[in-house]
């Protein structure tokens, strides 16, 4: 699969709907034979904090409330995408540093903490989506 099409998703929003959409697109793309990198940056890391999940303190609108009630949670989508395809999830090093977070503070879906240069190397030559 060296020639598999590449998709990179930049998720910069903590809104649950965008987090869910990015997770869904990433996992379905991976299951459809694409090599997917999901870069979670800035406030988008907040819903991935174990504390946020424990407190269920997600930032949601109307659709997000229904998603929480009825749909699989975004991290389950990502776990499925990783099992069934090529999907890697990265946390933004800058946001982690300024907040003093470590990967242990986050849900266990992250493959690494990386900076922008590493992300651009991963994304080079492929499609990029921003959420």
């Amino acid at each position, binding site marked *: 699969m060296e020639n598999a099409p590449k998709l990179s998703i930049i998720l910069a929003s903590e809104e649950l709907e965008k987090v869910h959409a990015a997770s869904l697109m990433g996992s*379905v793309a991976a*299951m459809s034979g694409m090599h997917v990198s999901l870069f979670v940056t800035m406030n988008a890391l907040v819903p991935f904090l174990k504390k946020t999940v424990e407190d269920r303190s997600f930032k949601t609108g109307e659709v997000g409330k229904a998603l929480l009630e009825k749909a699989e949670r975004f991290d389950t989508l990502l776990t499925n995408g990783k099992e*069934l395809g090529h999907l890697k999830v990265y946390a933004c090093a800058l946001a982690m540093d300024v907040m003093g977070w470590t990967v242990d503070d986050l849900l266990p879906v992250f493959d690494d903490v990386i900076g922008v240069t590493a992300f651009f190397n991963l994304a080079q030559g492929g499609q990029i989506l921003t959420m």
Partner: protein
Amino acid sequence: MITKTIDARGSYCPGPLMELIKAMRAAAVGDVIEVWSNDAGSAKDIPEWVEKMKHGLVHVEETDGYYKIAVEKKHA
């Protein structure tokens, strides 16, 4: 004709697709998997996935408010 049936009713997109993909992985070439879904999004999305992955769409039937989507595994 149908090798395996998966009842994914009550599951939202992309749940039925994920269930289908898991079953397709375990299936042999030539097997036909039928997935049941009451999610209209999946009824549109699963045939797209089947075409993209070059498997065979056997049928999409709507009965009693849910869809039966049958897919033949064409390659490993």
